[in-house]
Protein backbone atom coordinates (compact mmCIF):
# COMPACT_ATOMS: atom_id res chain seq x y z
CA UNK A 1 0.00 0.00 0.00
CA UNK A 2 1.39 3.33 -0.99
CA UNK A 3 0.14 4.88 2.21
CA UNK A 4 2.68 2.84 4.11
CA UNK A 5 5.44 4.14 1.90
CA UNK A 6 4.33 7.69 2.41
CA UNK A 7 4.10 7.29 6.13
CA UNK A 8 7.45 5.57 6.26
CA UNK A 9 9.08 8.62 4.75
CA UNK A 10 7.92 10.93 7.50
CA UNK A 11 10.88 12.90 8.67
CA UNK A 12 11.29 15.17 11.59
CA UNK A 13 11.63 18.75 10.32
CA UNK A 14 15.06 20.28 10.64
CA UNK A 15 14.23 22.80 13.28
CA UNK A 16 17.49 24.70 12.95
CA UNK A 17 16.40 25.93 9.57
CA UNK A 18 13.08 27.34 10.58
CA UNK A 19 13.98 28.89 13.90
CA UNK A 20 13.52 32.47 12.63
CA UNK A 21 10.06 31.74 11.32
CA UNK A 22 9.23 29.81 14.41
CA UNK A 23 10.36 32.64 16.64
CA UNK A 24 8.22 35.13 14.81
CA UNK A 25 5.27 32.76 14.83
CA UNK A 26 5.61 32.05 18.53
CA UNK A 27 5.78 35.77 19.17
CA UNK A 28 2.55 36.13 17.29
CA UNK A 29 0.88 33.39 19.26
CA UNK A 30 2.16 34.80 22.49
CA UNK A 31 0.54 38.10 21.62
CA UNK A 32 -2.60 36.28 20.62
CA UNK A 33 -2.68 34.48 23.94
CA UNK A 34 -2.15 37.68 25.86
CA UNK A 35 -4.96 39.24 23.91
CA UNK A 36 -7.23 36.40 24.87
CA UNK A 37 -6.24 36.42 28.51
CA UNK A 38 -6.34 40.08 29.37
CA UNK A 39 -9.36 42.26 29.20
CA UNK A 40 -7.43 45.52 29.03
CA UNK A 41 -4.54 45.71 26.65
CA UNK A 42 -1.14 47.13 27.34
CA UNK A 43 -0.10 48.17 23.87
CA UNK A 44 3.38 49.18 24.85
CA UNK A 45 3.95 45.72 26.24
CA UNK A 46 2.69 44.24 22.98
CA UNK A 47 5.05 46.39 21.01
CA UNK A 48 7.96 45.38 23.19
CA UNK A 49 7.14 41.71 22.98
CA UNK A 50 6.96 41.91 19.21
CA UNK A 51 10.21 43.81 18.99
CA UNK A 52 12.02 41.40 21.27
CA UNK A 53 10.68 38.39 19.41
CA UNK A 54 11.58 39.74 16.01
CA UNK A 55 14.92 40.84 17.26
CA UNK A 56 15.73 37.34 18.38
CA UNK A 57 14.89 36.02 14.94
CA UNK A 58 17.02 38.77 13.46
CA UNK A 59 19.97 37.83 15.61
CA UNK A 60 19.64 34.20 14.68
CA UNK A 61 19.77 35.05 11.01
CA UNK A 62 22.59 37.48 11.51
CA UNK A 63 24.71 34.88 13.27
CA UNK A 64 23.88 32.04 10.90
CA UNK A 65 23.86 33.75 7.54
CA UNK A 66 25.05 30.81 5.51
CA UNK A 67 22.70 28.28 7.03
CA UNK A 68 21.18 26.32 4.20
CA UNK A 69 19.16 23.26 3.52
CA UNK A 70 15.64 22.20 2.85
CA UNK A 71 13.05 20.58 5.03
CA UNK A 72 9.36 19.64 5.06
CA UNK A 73 10.01 17.37 2.07
CA UNK A 74 11.36 20.22 0.00
CA UNK A 75 8.47 22.51 0.76
CA UNK A 76 10.80 24.84 2.56
CA UNK A 77 14.23 25.97 1.47
CA UNK A 78 16.63 28.07 3.42
CA UNK A 79 19.55 29.42 1.52
CA UNK A 80 21.63 32.53 1.52
CA UNK A 81 19.06 34.33 -0.56
CA UNK A 82 16.22 33.70 1.81
CA UNK A 83 18.30 34.57 4.87
CA UNK A 84 19.27 37.79 3.17
CA UNK A 85 15.68 38.74 2.47
CA UNK A 86 14.50 37.56 5.88
CA UNK A 87 16.99 39.80 7.57
CA UNK A 88 15.64 42.89 5.90
CA UNK A 89 12.04 41.85 6.29
CA UNK A 90 12.41 41.46 10.03
CA UNK A 91 14.44 44.61 10.36
CA UNK A 92 11.89 46.67 8.49
CA UNK A 93 9.06 45.17 10.50
CA UNK A 94 10.78 46.32 13.65
CA UNK A 95 11.15 49.77 12.14
CA UNK A 96 7.49 49.91 11.24
CA UNK A 97 6.51 48.77 14.70
CA UNK A 98 8.26 51.77 16.20
CA UNK A 99 5.75 54.03 14.49
CA UNK A 100 2.55 52.21 15.10
CA UNK A 101 1.67 52.91 18.68
CA UNK A 102 1.51 56.67 18.52
CA UNK A 103 -0.03 56.67 15.10
CA UNK A 104 -2.88 54.43 16.06
CA UNK A 105 -3.40 56.21 19.33
CA UNK A 106 -3.74 59.48 17.50
CA UNK A 107 -6.21 57.91 15.08
CA UNK A 108 -8.10 56.21 17.94
CA UNK A 109 -7.59 52.90 16.18
CA UNK A 110 -5.59 50.77 18.53
CA UNK A 111 -6.45 47.20 17.81
CA UNK A 112 -4.77 44.34 19.57
CA UNK A 113 -5.19 42.26 16.45
CA UNK A 114 -2.74 44.50 14.73
CA UNK A 115 0.22 43.08 16.57
CA UNK A 116 -0.30 39.46 15.85
CA UNK A 117 -1.56 39.92 12.35
CA UNK A 118 1.63 41.81 11.70
CA UNK A 119 3.61 38.85 12.89
CA UNK A 120 1.56 36.48 10.76
CA UNK A 121 2.17 38.70 7.77
CA UNK A 122 5.86 38.65 8.53
CA UNK A 123 5.99 34.90 8.87
CA UNK A 124 4.13 34.43 5.59
CA UNK A 125 6.42 36.89 3.90
CA UNK A 126 9.39 34.93 5.17
CA UNK A 127 7.96 31.71 3.81
CA UNK A 128 7.30 33.37 0.50
CA UNK A 129 10.97 34.16 0.24
CA UNK A 130 12.10 30.66 0.97
CA UNK A 131 10.40 28.14 -1.20
CA UNK A 132 10.42 26.66 -4.64
CA UNK A 133 7.27 24.74 -4.02
CA UNK A 134 4.01 26.03 -5.38
CA UNK A 135 2.05 24.89 -2.34
CA UNK A 136 4.22 26.83 0.04
CA UNK A 137 4.22 29.78 -2.28
CA UNK A 138 0.46 29.68 -2.52
CA UNK A 139 -0.11 29.42 1.20
CA UNK A 140 2.44 32.09 1.98
CA UNK A 141 1.09 34.37 -0.70
CA UNK A 142 -2.38 34.06 0.75
CA UNK A 143 -1.00 34.56 4.23
CA UNK A 144 0.67 37.81 3.32
CA UNK A 145 -2.30 39.00 1.32
CA UNK A 146 -4.94 38.24 3.88
CA UNK A 147 -2.89 39.85 6.60
CA UNK A 148 -2.50 42.89 4.40
CA UNK A 149 -6.22 43.11 3.74
CA UNK A 150 -6.89 43.15 7.44
CA UNK A 151 -4.08 45.52 8.27
CA UNK A 152 -5.26 47.88 5.57
CA UNK A 153 -8.77 47.95 6.93
CA UNK A 154 -7.71 48.58 10.53
CA UNK A 155 -8.49 52.28 10.71
CA UNK A 156 -11.54 53.01 12.72
CA UNK A 157 -14.33 54.86 10.97
CA UNK A 158 -12.21 55.62 7.95
CA UNK A 159 -14.00 54.78 4.73
CA UNK A 160 -10.90 55.07 2.58
CA UNK A 161 -9.26 52.39 4.59
CA UNK A 162 -12.11 49.98 3.98
CA UNK A 163 -12.35 50.94 0.35
CA UNK A 164 -8.67 50.39 -0.22
CA UNK A 165 -8.83 47.11 1.57
CA UNK A 166 -11.77 45.92 -0.46
CA UNK A 167 -10.15 46.82 -3.74
CA UNK A 168 -7.00 45.12 -2.61
CA UNK A 169 -9.03 42.09 -1.65
CA UNK A 170 -10.76 41.81 -4.99
CA UNK A 171 -7.67 42.25 -7.12
CA UNK A 172 -5.62 40.24 -4.68
CA UNK A 173 -8.16 37.45 -4.96
CA UNK A 174 -7.99 37.69 -8.72
CA UNK A 175 -4.24 37.52 -8.59
CA UNK A 176 -4.30 34.49 -6.38
CA UNK A 177 -6.82 32.78 -8.61
CA UNK A 178 -4.65 33.47 -11.63
CA UNK A 179 -1.45 32.43 -9.92
CA UNK A 180 -2.92 29.19 -8.69
CA UNK A 181 -4.46 28.51 -12.08
CA UNK A 182 -1.04 28.99 -13.57
CA UNK A 183 0.26 26.61 -10.95
CA UNK A 184 -2.35 24.08 -12.04
CA UNK A 185 -1.23 24.27 -15.64
CA UNK A 186 2.38 23.90 -14.67
CA UNK A 187 1.43 20.92 -12.53
CA UNK A 188 -0.38 19.32 -15.43
CA UNK A 189 2.67 19.93 -17.59
CA UNK A 190 5.32 18.55 -15.31
CA UNK A 191 3.49 16.50 -12.72
CA UNK A 192 5.30 18.26 -9.98
CA UNK A 193 4.75 21.27 -7.80
CA UNK A 194 8.39 22.14 -7.48
CA UNK A 195 9.29 25.14 -9.61
CA UNK A 196 12.79 23.87 -10.19
CA UNK A 197 11.50 20.62 -11.53
CA UNK A 198 8.78 22.28 -13.56
CA UNK A 199 10.99 24.76 -15.29
CA UNK A 200 13.76 22.31 -16.04
CA UNK A 201 11.38 19.56 -17.12
CA UNK A 202 11.42 18.83 -20.81
CA UNK A 203 7.92 17.74 -21.57
CA UNK A 204 5.83 17.71 -24.68
CA UNK A 205 3.44 20.53 -24.05
CA UNK A 206 5.64 23.59 -23.89
CA UNK A 207 2.60 25.73 -24.53
CA UNK A 208 1.08 24.50 -21.32
CA UNK A 209 4.18 25.49 -19.41
CA UNK A 210 4.29 28.94 -20.94
CA UNK A 211 0.59 29.46 -20.36
CA UNK A 212 1.02 28.38 -16.77
CA UNK A 213 4.03 30.58 -16.25
CA UNK A 214 2.26 33.55 -17.77
CA UNK A 215 -0.76 33.08 -15.50
CA UNK A 216 1.51 32.60 -12.53
CA UNK A 217 3.44 35.73 -13.33
CA UNK A 218 0.33 37.78 -13.98
CA UNK A 219 -0.81 36.76 -10.53
CA UNK A 220 2.38 38.07 -9.07
CA UNK A 221 2.31 41.11 -11.31
CA UNK A 222 -0.97 42.09 -9.69
CA UNK A 223 0.55 41.70 -6.26
CA UNK A 224 3.59 43.69 -7.26
CA UNK A 225 1.42 46.40 -8.73
CA UNK A 226 2.67 46.18 -12.28
CA UNK A 227 0.70 48.06 -14.92
CA UNK A 228 -1.87 47.12 -16.23
CA UNK A 229 -2.66 45.20 -13.05
CA UNK A 230 -2.02 48.01 -10.61
CA UNK A 231 -5.50 49.37 -9.93
CA UNK A 232 -5.64 48.32 -6.33
CA UNK A 233 -2.28 49.64 -5.31
CA UNK A 234 -2.81 53.40 -5.10
CA UNK A 235 -6.11 52.96 -3.28
CA UNK A 236 -4.79 50.39 -0.87
CA UNK A 237 -1.69 52.41 -0.17
CA UNK A 238 -3.64 55.59 0.31
CA UNK A 239 -6.37 54.01 2.37
CA UNK A 240 -4.15 51.98 4.63
CA UNK A 241 -2.85 53.36 7.90
CA UNK A 242 0.42 54.94 6.88
CA UNK A 243 2.75 52.69 8.89
CA UNK A 244 1.04 49.79 7.16
CA UNK A 245 1.58 51.47 3.84
CA UNK A 246 5.23 51.63 4.73
CA UNK A 247 5.08 47.98 5.64
CA UNK A 248 3.43 47.02 2.36
CA UNK A 249 5.86 49.10 0.38
CA UNK A 250 8.86 47.52 2.05
CA UNK A 251 8.25 44.04 3.38
CA UNK A 252 5.38 43.47 0.95
CA UNK A 253 7.51 44.36 -2.03
CA UNK A 254 10.32 42.13 -0.83
CA UNK A 255 7.97 39.25 -0.27
CA UNK A 256 6.06 39.50 -3.53
CA UNK A 257 9.18 39.90 -5.61
CA UNK A 258 11.01 37.04 -3.95
CA UNK A 259 9.38 34.15 -5.87
CA UNK A 260 9.69 35.99 -9.17
CA UNK A 261 13.35 36.51 -8.43
CA UNK A 262 13.70 32.84 -7.60
CA UNK A 263 12.35 31.93 -11.01
CA UNK A 264 14.94 34.05 -12.82
CA UNK A 265 17.80 31.52 -12.73
CA UNK A 266 15.47 28.81 -13.95
CA UNK A 267 14.59 30.53 -17.20
CA UNK A 268 15.40 28.11 -19.99
CA UNK A 269 16.60 28.84 -23.48
CA UNK A 270 13.35 28.12 -25.19
CA UNK A 271 11.35 30.79 -23.46
CA UNK A 272 14.05 33.23 -22.51
CA UNK A 273 13.09 35.51 -25.36
CA UNK A 274 9.41 35.49 -24.41
CA UNK A 275 10.44 36.26 -20.84
CA UNK A 276 12.49 39.27 -21.84
CA UNK A 277 9.82 40.70 -24.08
CA UNK A 278 6.94 40.15 -21.69
CA UNK A 279 8.64 41.34 -18.56
CA UNK A 280 10.28 44.15 -20.46
CA UNK A 281 7.02 45.48 -21.82
CA UNK A 282 5.28 45.20 -18.47
CA UNK A 283 8.20 46.94 -16.86
CA UNK A 284 8.17 49.74 -19.44
CA UNK A 285 4.46 50.30 -19.00
CA UNK A 286 4.78 50.19 -15.25
CA UNK A 287 7.47 52.76 -14.91
CA UNK A 288 6.01 55.12 -17.47
CA UNK A 289 2.49 54.92 -16.11
CA UNK A 290 3.52 55.08 -12.48
CA UNK A 291 5.60 58.17 -12.98
CA UNK A 292 3.19 59.94 -15.31
CA UNK A 293 0.27 59.53 -12.97
CA UNK A 294 2.34 60.41 -9.95
CA UNK A 295 3.13 63.67 -11.66
CA UNK A 296 -0.46 64.88 -11.43
CA UNK A 297 -1.14 63.78 -7.86
CA UNK A 298 -1.99 66.28 -5.19
CA UNK A 299 -2.01 63.83 -2.34
CA UNK A 300 1.48 62.93 -1.27
CA UNK A 301 0.59 59.50 -0.01
CA UNK A 302 -0.97 58.63 -3.31
CA UNK A 303 1.96 60.16 -5.10
CA UNK A 304 4.34 57.94 -3.20
CA UNK A 305 2.09 54.98 -3.96
CA UNK A 306 2.43 55.68 -7.67
CA UNK A 307 6.12 56.10 -7.21
CA UNK A 308 6.08 52.68 -5.66
CA UNK A 309 4.46 51.37 -8.83
CA UNK A 310 7.15 53.07 -10.85
CA UNK A 311 9.83 51.45 -8.74
CA UNK A 312 8.24 48.09 -9.34
CA UNK A 313 8.78 48.90 -12.98
CA UNK A 314 12.47 49.60 -12.46
CA UNK A 315 12.87 46.36 -10.57
CA UNK A 316 11.01 44.48 -13.29
CA UNK A 317 13.43 45.94 -15.82
CA UNK A 318 16.19 44.18 -13.93
CA UNK A 319 14.13 41.01 -13.79
CA UNK A 320 13.79 41.07 -17.58
CA UNK A 321 17.53 40.34 -17.69
CA UNK A 322 17.44 36.77 -16.50
CA UNK A 323 21.14 36.59 -15.78
CA UNK A 324 23.22 36.72 -12.64
CA UNK A 325 23.94 40.40 -13.10
CA UNK A 326 20.25 41.14 -13.45
CA UNK A 327 19.48 39.19 -10.33
CA UNK A 328 22.11 41.05 -8.36
CA UNK A 329 20.80 44.38 -9.58
CA UNK A 330 17.26 43.38 -8.71
CA UNK A 331 18.23 42.26 -5.25
CA UNK A 332 20.07 45.46 -4.55
CA UNK A 333 17.25 47.57 -5.90
CA UNK A 334 14.71 45.62 -3.90
CA UNK A 335 16.51 46.28 -0.67
CA UNK A 336 17.08 49.85 -1.72
CA UNK A 337 13.44 50.42 -2.44
CA UNK A 338 12.40 48.70 0.76
CA UNK A 339 14.52 51.13 2.73
CA UNK A 340 13.45 54.19 0.79
CA UNK A 341 9.80 53.23 0.66
CA UNK A 342 9.68 52.43 4.33
CA UNK A 343 11.47 55.65 5.15
CA UNK A 344 9.32 57.94 3.08
CA UNK A 345 6.04 56.44 4.20
CA UNK A 346 7.12 56.37 7.82
CA UNK A 347 7.97 60.04 7.63
CA UNK A 348 4.51 60.62 6.28
CA UNK A 349 3.12 58.59 9.16
CA UNK A 350 4.95 60.85 11.54
CA UNK A 351 3.57 63.98 9.90
CA UNK A 352 0.07 62.52 9.74
CA UNK A 353 -0.05 62.57 13.49
CA UNK A 354 -0.57 66.30 13.26
CA UNK A 355 -4.32 66.75 13.57
CA UNK A 356 -4.56 69.19 10.65
CA UNK A 357 -2.31 67.30 8.31
CA UNK A 358 -4.08 66.33 5.09
CA UNK A 359 -1.19 64.84 3.09
CA UNK A 360 -1.55 67.65 0.62
CA UNK A 361 1.50 68.68 -1.28
CA UNK A 362 1.35 72.32 -0.27
CA UNK A 363 1.58 71.38 3.35
CA UNK A 364 5.20 70.51 2.89
CA UNK A 365 6.10 74.13 2.35
CA UNK A 366 7.69 75.58 5.41
CA UNK A 367 8.48 72.21 6.84
CA UNK A 368 12.13 73.10 6.78
CA UNK A 369 11.55 75.70 9.46
CA UNK A 370 9.15 73.85 11.69
CA UNK A 371 10.83 70.45 11.58
CA UNK A 372 14.25 70.87 9.98
CA UNK A 373 15.55 67.38 10.65
CA UNK A 374 12.46 65.72 9.29
CA UNK A 375 12.70 67.95 6.25
CA UNK A 376 16.31 66.98 5.64
CA UNK A 377 15.55 63.33 5.98
CA UNK A 378 12.58 63.73 3.66
CA UNK A 379 14.83 65.42 1.13
CA UNK A 380 17.30 62.58 1.31
CA UNK A 381 14.56 60.04 0.71
CA UNK A 382 13.23 62.01 -2.22
CA UNK A 383 16.65 62.34 -3.79
CA UNK A 384 17.26 58.69 -3.22
CA UNK A 385 13.96 57.73 -4.83
CA UNK A 386 14.93 59.95 -7.70
CA UNK A 387 18.36 58.40 -7.95
CA UNK A 388 20.71 61.21 -7.04
CA UNK A 389 24.05 59.85 -5.91
CA UNK A 390 25.27 58.83 -3.45
CA UNK A 391 22.15 57.03 -2.37
CA UNK A 392 20.83 53.52 -2.60
CA UNK A 393 18.35 54.64 -5.24
CA UNK A 394 21.16 55.78 -7.46
CA UNK A 395 23.18 52.61 -7.05
CA UNK A 396 20.10 50.55 -7.73
CA UNK A 397 19.39 52.38 -10.94
CA UNK A 398 23.00 52.20 -12.02
CA UNK A 399 22.97 48.46 -11.42
CA UNK A 400 19.78 48.03 -13.41
CA UNK A 401 21.33 50.03 -16.21
CA UNK A 402 24.33 47.74 -16.04
CA UNK A 403 22.11 44.72 -16.32
CA UNK A 404 20.17 46.21 -19.22
CA UNK A 405 23.28 47.16 -21.07
CA UNK A 406 24.57 43.66 -20.46
CA UNK A 407 21.67 42.28 -22.45
CA UNK A 408 21.70 45.27 -24.83
CA UNK A 409 18.13 46.13 -23.94
CA UNK A 410 18.67 49.70 -24.97
CA UNK A 411 15.02 50.42 -25.57
CA UNK A 412 14.18 49.51 -22.01
CA UNK A 413 17.08 51.58 -20.75
CA UNK A 414 15.83 54.59 -22.67
CA UNK A 415 12.34 54.13 -21.35
CA UNK A 416 13.80 53.94 -17.89
CA UNK A 417 15.66 57.19 -18.47
CA UNK A 418 12.46 58.76 -19.74
CA UNK A 419 10.53 57.50 -16.75
CA UNK A 420 13.14 58.72 -14.32
CA UNK A 421 13.08 62.03 -16.11
CA UNK A 422 9.36 62.26 -15.57
CA UNK A 423 9.79 61.35 -11.95
CA UNK A 424 12.18 64.25 -11.48
CA UNK A 425 9.14 66.47 -11.78
CA UNK A 426 7.43 65.44 -8.60
CA UNK A 427 10.34 64.46 -6.39
CA UNK A 428 12.08 67.77 -6.97
CA UNK A 429 8.83 69.60 -6.55
CA UNK A 430 8.48 68.10 -3.10
CA UNK A 431 12.03 69.07 -2.21
CA UNK A 432 11.48 72.55 -3.61
CA UNK A 433 8.29 72.94 -1.60
CA UNK A 434 9.89 71.70 1.56
CA UNK A 435 12.95 73.85 1.42
CA UNK A 436 12.29 76.82 -0.77
CA UNK A 437 8.73 77.84 -0.09
CA UNK A 438 7.78 79.46 3.11
CA UNK A 439 4.45 79.06 4.77
CA UNK A 440 2.62 80.85 7.52
CA UNK A 441 1.52 77.55 8.95
CA UNK A 442 3.87 75.72 11.18
CA UNK A 443 3.47 72.01 11.60
CA UNK A 444 5.16 70.46 14.54
CA UNK A 445 4.84 66.88 15.64
CA UNK A 446 6.35 65.40 18.74
CA UNK A 447 8.13 62.17 18.06
CA UNK A 448 9.30 59.47 20.38
CA UNK A 449 12.88 58.40 20.75
CA UNK A 450 12.26 55.16 18.89
CA UNK A 451 10.82 57.03 15.95
CA UNK A 452 13.73 59.40 15.87
CA UNK A 453 16.17 56.54 15.94
CA UNK A 454 14.37 54.69 13.17
CA UNK A 455 14.19 57.71 10.93
CA UNK A 456 17.82 58.43 11.60
CA UNK A 457 18.89 54.89 10.88
CA UNK A 458 16.88 54.69 7.70
CA UNK A 459 18.12 58.02 6.42
CA UNK A 460 21.67 57.16 7.26
CA UNK A 461 21.41 53.75 5.69
CA UNK A 462 20.05 55.24 2.49
CA UNK A 463 23.11 57.43 2.25
CA UNK A 464 25.73 55.08 3.64
CA UNK A 465 24.59 52.04 1.70
CA UNK A 466 24.58 54.24 -1.38
CA UNK A 467 28.03 55.61 -0.78
CA UNK A 468 29.44 52.23 0.19
CA UNK A 469 27.19 49.86 -1.74
CA UNK A 470 29.53 46.94 -1.15
CA UNK A 471 27.71 46.25 2.12
CA UNK A 472 24.57 45.10 0.38
CA UNK A 473 26.23 44.24 -2.87
CA UNK A 474 28.36 41.48 -1.44
CA UNK A 475 25.34 39.79 0.10
CA UNK A 476 23.22 40.28 -3.00
CA UNK A 477 25.99 39.02 -5.21
CA UNK A 478 26.60 35.99 -3.08
CA UNK A 479 22.95 35.03 -2.91
CA UNK A 480 22.56 35.52 -6.65
CA UNK A 481 25.52 33.28 -7.28
CA UNK A 482 24.08 30.64 -5.01
CA UNK A 483 20.74 30.78 -6.77
CA UNK A 484 22.40 30.43 -10.12
CA UNK A 485 24.61 27.59 -9.03
CA UNK A 486 21.64 25.44 -8.11
Amino acid at each position, binding site marked *: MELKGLIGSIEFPKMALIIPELTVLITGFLLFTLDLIFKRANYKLYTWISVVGYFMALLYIAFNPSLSGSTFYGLYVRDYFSSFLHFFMILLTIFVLAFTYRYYRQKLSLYREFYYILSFALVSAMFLASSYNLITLYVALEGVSISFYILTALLRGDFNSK*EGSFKYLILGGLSIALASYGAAFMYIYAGSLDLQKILTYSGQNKDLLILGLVFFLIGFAIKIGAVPFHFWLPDAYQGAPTPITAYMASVGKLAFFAPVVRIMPLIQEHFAYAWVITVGIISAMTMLYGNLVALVQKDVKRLLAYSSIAHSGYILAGIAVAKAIGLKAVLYFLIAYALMGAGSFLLLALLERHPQWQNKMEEFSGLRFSMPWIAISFMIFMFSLLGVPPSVGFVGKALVFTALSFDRLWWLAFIMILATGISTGYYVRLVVLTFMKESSRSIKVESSLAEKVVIFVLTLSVVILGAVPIIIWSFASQSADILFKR
Partner: protein
Amino acid sequence: MTVIPLEAYIILSVLIFGLGLFGMIVRRNLVTVLMSMELALNAVNIAFVGADVHLGLADGQVFALFIIALAAAEAAVGLGIIIAIFRLRRVESTDEITDMRG
Protein backbone atom coordinates in the same frame (compact mmCIF):
# COMPACT_ATOMS: atom_id res chain seq x y z
CA MET B 1 -14.80 1.59 -17.35
CA THR B 2 -13.62 4.61 -19.31
CA VAL B 3 -11.54 7.26 -17.62
CA ILE B 4 -12.67 10.82 -17.99
CA PRO B 5 -10.02 12.48 -20.16
CA LEU B 6 -7.91 15.30 -18.79
CA GLU B 7 -9.24 17.65 -21.43
CA ALA B 8 -12.72 17.35 -19.99
CA TYR B 9 -11.51 18.50 -16.60
CA ILE B 10 -9.57 21.33 -18.12
CA ILE B 11 -12.43 22.50 -20.27
CA LEU B 12 -14.77 22.43 -17.29
CA SER B 13 -12.33 24.32 -15.16
CA VAL B 14 -11.67 26.88 -17.87
CA LEU B 15 -15.39 27.45 -18.21
CA ILE B 16 -15.90 27.91 -14.50
CA PHE B 17 -12.82 30.05 -14.20
CA GLY B 18 -14.03 32.22 -17.04
CA LEU B 19 -17.38 32.51 -15.32
CA GLY B 20 -15.67 33.57 -12.13
CA LEU B 21 -13.52 36.13 -13.88
CA PHE B 22 -16.50 37.44 -15.76
CA GLY B 23 -18.40 37.77 -12.54
CA MET B 24 -15.58 39.59 -10.85
CA ILE B 25 -15.29 42.07 -13.64
CA VAL B 26 -18.90 42.60 -14.61
CA ARG B 27 -20.93 42.21 -11.45
CA ARG B 28 -21.37 45.20 -9.19
CA ASN B 29 -22.71 43.70 -6.00
CA LEU B 30 -19.99 43.40 -3.40
CA VAL B 31 -20.93 39.93 -2.24
CA THR B 32 -21.40 38.67 -5.77
CA VAL B 33 -17.90 39.77 -6.64
CA LEU B 34 -16.62 37.84 -3.68
CA MET B 35 -18.59 34.80 -4.74
CA SER B 36 -17.21 35.00 -8.25
CA MET B 37 -13.74 35.00 -6.77
CA GLU B 38 -14.49 31.81 -4.91
CA LEU B 39 -15.86 30.33 -8.11
CA ALA B 40 -12.63 31.04 -9.90
CA LEU B 41 -10.67 29.39 -7.12
CA ASN B 42 -12.88 26.34 -7.28
CA ALA B 43 -12.17 26.11 -10.99
CA VAL B 44 -8.53 25.83 -10.02
CA ASN B 45 -9.44 23.00 -7.69
CA ILE B 46 -11.10 21.13 -10.51
CA ALA B 47 -8.03 21.54 -12.66
CA PHE B 48 -5.81 20.23 -9.88
CA VAL B 49 -7.94 17.27 -9.02
CA GLY B 50 -8.39 16.43 -12.68
CA ALA B 51 -4.66 16.54 -13.14
CA ASP B 52 -4.28 14.20 -10.20
CA VAL B 53 -6.67 11.70 -11.73
CA HIS B 54 -4.69 11.89 -14.91
CA LEU B 55 -1.23 11.77 -13.40
CA GLY B 56 -1.96 9.40 -10.56
CA LEU B 57 -0.43 11.71 -7.97
CA ALA B 58 -1.73 13.25 -4.78
CA ASP B 59 0.05 16.61 -4.74
CA GLY B 60 -2.71 18.33 -6.62
CA GLN B 61 -5.30 17.26 -4.09
CA VAL B 62 -3.21 18.67 -1.31
CA PHE B 63 -3.01 21.90 -3.21
CA ALA B 64 -6.77 21.83 -3.67
CA LEU B 65 -7.25 21.36 0.06
CA PHE B 66 -5.10 24.37 0.75
CA ILE B 67 -6.98 26.39 -1.82
CA ILE B 68 -10.26 25.50 -0.15
CA ALA B 69 -8.99 26.50 3.26
CA LEU B 70 -7.40 29.74 2.23
CA ALA B 71 -10.23 30.72 -0.05
CA ALA B 72 -12.48 30.37 2.95
CA ALA B 73 -10.20 32.57 4.99
CA GLU B 74 -10.18 35.12 2.24
CA ALA B 75 -13.92 35.03 1.94
CA ALA B 76 -14.20 35.51 5.69
CA VAL B 77 -11.99 38.57 5.56
CA GLY B 78 -13.85 39.80 2.53
CA LEU B 79 -17.19 39.48 4.25
CA GLY B 80 -15.77 41.24 7.26
CA ILE B 81 -14.65 44.13 5.14
CA ILE B 82 -17.97 44.28 3.35
CA ILE B 83 -19.77 44.44 6.68
CA ALA B 84 -17.43 47.20 7.79
CA ILE B 85 -18.10 49.08 4.58
CA PHE B 86 -21.79 48.66 5.06
CA ARG B 87 -21.67 49.85 8.63
CA LEU B 88 -19.87 53.01 7.60
CA ARG B 89 -22.00 53.75 4.58
CA ARG B 90 -24.97 51.86 3.23
CA VAL B 91 -23.49 50.83 -0.09
CA GLU B 92 -23.98 47.57 -1.88
CA SER B 93 -22.39 48.18 -5.25
CA THR B 94 -18.82 48.57 -6.34
CA ASP B 95 -19.81 51.68 -8.24
CA GLU B 96 -20.40 53.47 -4.98
CA ILE B 97 -16.96 52.82 -3.52
CA THR B 98 -15.00 55.35 -5.43
CA ASP B 99 -13.83 57.89 -2.89
CA MET B 100 -10.26 57.68 -4.01
CA ARG B 101 -9.48 58.49 -7.57
CA GLY B 102 -6.65 59.64 -9.75
